[in-house]
């Protein structure tokens, strides 16, 4: 066996490093999961009003939502994080006055805030697209039957729209997982932060390999779970229509999902 192959092997399987610092990666993973989970869920909640405002017939409301989406999708997340974290520090007297400094003082909250605002913009566009993918005729028909707006949303639009939204939402979740590594820059000891910490101590590149593998496992798991959920929820679409009401959406979904799979 040539000498370099042993070096490669030692790089890939570095038990000494894992034994000493493995727990740091695990606590980092915990922090990453907390940041991603919290900001993605909060972003989902915030995305609804933004998506609805974006579709509003009132010009001012829809422009406002469109600007929000444009700003947060059109600027780097790192820049947004810096604006909130270091920019927040500049306004300390003001924040102290209004009693929210405790929030901006903490790197964890700053991360949650900026990630939430960012993902909400992306999720709002996903939701809007999904809602608009439901044929107008169905809404009109439901209205003709005398259903209220809430009932139309709940029984006609949402079941179909959410099905369309699941896969892009899954992709967005994967984006957030990867983007969350930025938290390390503002001192948060997430998976990336812990990795940097260990590297700073040991100058051992293997740690970045293990970090990457954990991120890969995380995103791959997410992808599979989302796929399983989508498969389960779209059984009726794939199995063929039992009744007339599903025929129209069936063809649309094929088009929509086919597009994603390409």
């Amino acid at each position, binding site marked *: 066996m040539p000498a*370099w192959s042993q*070096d*490669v092997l*030692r*790089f890939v399987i*570095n038990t000494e490093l894992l034994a000493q610092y493995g727990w740091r990666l695990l606590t980092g993973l915990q922090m990453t999961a907390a940041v991603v989970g919290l900001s993605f869920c909060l972003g989902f909640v915030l995305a609804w009003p933004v998506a609805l405002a974006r579709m509003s017939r009132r010009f001012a409301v829809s422009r406002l939502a469109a600007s929000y989406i444009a700003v947060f999708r059109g600027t780097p997340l790192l820049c947004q994080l810096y604006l909130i974290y*270091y920019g*927040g*520090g*500049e306004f*300390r007297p003001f924040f102290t006055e209004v009693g929210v*400094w405790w929030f901006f*003082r*903490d*790197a964890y909250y700053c991360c949650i805030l900026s990630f939430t605002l960012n993902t909400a913009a992306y999720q709002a566009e996903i939701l809007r697209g999904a809602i608009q993918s439901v044929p107008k005729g169905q809404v009109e028909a439901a209205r003709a039957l005398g259903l209220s707006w809430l009932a139309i949303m709940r029984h006609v639009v949402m079941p179909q729209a959410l099905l369309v939204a699941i896969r892009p939402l899954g992709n967005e979740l994967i984006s957030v997982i990867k983007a969350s590594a930025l938290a390390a*820059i503002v*001192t948060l000891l997430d998976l990336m932060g812990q990795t*940097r*910490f260990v*590297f*700073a*101590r*040991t*100058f*051992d*590149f*293997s740690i970045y390999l293990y970090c990457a593998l954990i991120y890969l496992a995380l995103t791959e798991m997410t992808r599979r779970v989302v796929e399983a959920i989508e498969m389960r929820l779209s059984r009726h679409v794939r199995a063929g229509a039992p009744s007339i009401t599903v025929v129209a959406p069936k063809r649309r979904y094929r088009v929509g999902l086919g597009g994603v799979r390409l």
Partner: protein
Amino acid sequence: MKTANAMVLAKRCLAALGVAAALVTAQAQAKEWKTVRIGMDATYPPFESVNAKGEIVGWEVDYATELCKRMKVTCTFQNQDWDGIIPSLVANKFDVIMSSMNITDKRKALVNFSQVYFSTPPVFVGAAGVKSTDVSPEALKGKTIGTQSSTTFANYLEAMYKGSEIKLYPGGDEPQNDLKAGRLDYTLTDLIVGTNFVEKVGAGCCKVVTEIKRVPEFFGPGVGAAFRKEDADLTAMFNKAIDEVDADGTYKKIADGYFKINIRGK
């Protein structure tokens, strides 16, 4: 024991960089030095920082330029993140680190050092309202202390201040910013850097609380230039130039342009 461990790390570090890097460094060893690339983390004014024009400036730049003049080589300066500065040197991204790097045993296992060219004590910088000068681990229990990661300061805080919350930043200027913003109660930094920062932001923000001793086991003898292990010839050239600049008073002249105190440390 510590050194032995570090040796293993050094080997692995090199191994990870692969054969290509080894070939390049082998070439570097054979050549005669005409140009020398100096790497520094320019987040540490007044030693090194980036000015409005994007140039790296500071005392260490002026001093290095003087050394290069003596060695009759052309020097270029490269900005490099601190976390990766030793691996980058080993990977031949530049030839020397002159970036206020304290000489420690752990680093010595990875790189060669020149003789000490300056030595200053560490200081705790705190908010303007801090009254006591007691910075013992007991006194700072529960306080938030910030410093740059992979520095002697970070190692010292982690080993000694177990009861405090330690925040580590990639750059040398970021902990100062967060002290100013009120996210930190203290930062641990170099005397000159801390004083320079307090002078710039004003006494309303922060103050130098107190100097601490350079505990040798953590801080080493002082700051030196770092070289790849195989570049013993370059190390010798620098050592000679450092002596020359000392001897004819040029060191003092350059330092007096920047500092009120003597930083030479000998």
